[in-house]
């Protein structure tokens, strides 16, 4: 796949588009003041999580005791309270 040439301005203004391109494996050459400045290439085609990464989740989880009756609805209300904290 050949590089796509883009200016710094294009990069700044349309970053999500180029990020998506990088995630699809595209490579870009960045032009600054009419000259090629840098080549932007994706580091990899995706994450490579291991069994250890999955096992780590259980080690990191459950640090707080409680929350027995905290349903998603109650949790939403609790988060809404953070606004009331500031306003009251």
């Amino acid at each position: 796949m050949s590089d796509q040439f883009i200016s710094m301005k294009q990069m700044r203004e349309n970053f999500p588009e180029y990020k998506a391109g990088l995630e699809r494996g595209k490579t870009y050459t960045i032009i600054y003041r009419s000259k090629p400045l840098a080549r932007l290439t994706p580091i990899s085609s995706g994450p490579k999580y291991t069994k250890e990464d999955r096992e780590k989740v259980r080690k990191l989880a459950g640090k707080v005791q409680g929350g027995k009756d905290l349903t998603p609805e109650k949790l939403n209300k609790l988060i809404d309270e953070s606004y009331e904290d500031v306003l009251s």
Partner: protein
Amino acid sequence: MNHMKTCYLDANVLVYLCLHDSPFHKKAIDIIEKLYLDQYVLYTSPLALDEHIHAIKRTIQKEKLQSIYPTLHAVLESILDLTGLSLINSPTDLASQFHILTYMKDYSLKTRDAYHLLIMKYHDISHFATFDEDFEKVFADGMMEKY
């Protein structure tokens, strides 16, 4: 080359991940383990962390079982230690801020939730892991896929 699968973690997934006694605790662990198994790139935002810290703080205050700040520190550390989790933010250009109003109107979202949606759309994220039913219209419309 494959397009990377991306997922944004809502505050409630992070909260239930940390709350040992919650009936949703195991489900939150299962979600994250499955995201790893399916090789998703994981994202959350300072906005979600703000909600997460507030909810955890209130739970600790209510239960009175643990000291607040050391526990909050340990909890935040554990979230940020999740492999491959990146923090992303909302765009700062002026035009994007008006999307918030459109999202609030079209999907009956609260301002805060509209900002979560803006973050996900701006960063081209395909999936959203949440327990929040306020996003049902967003999922029904195909704006995001529920994980």
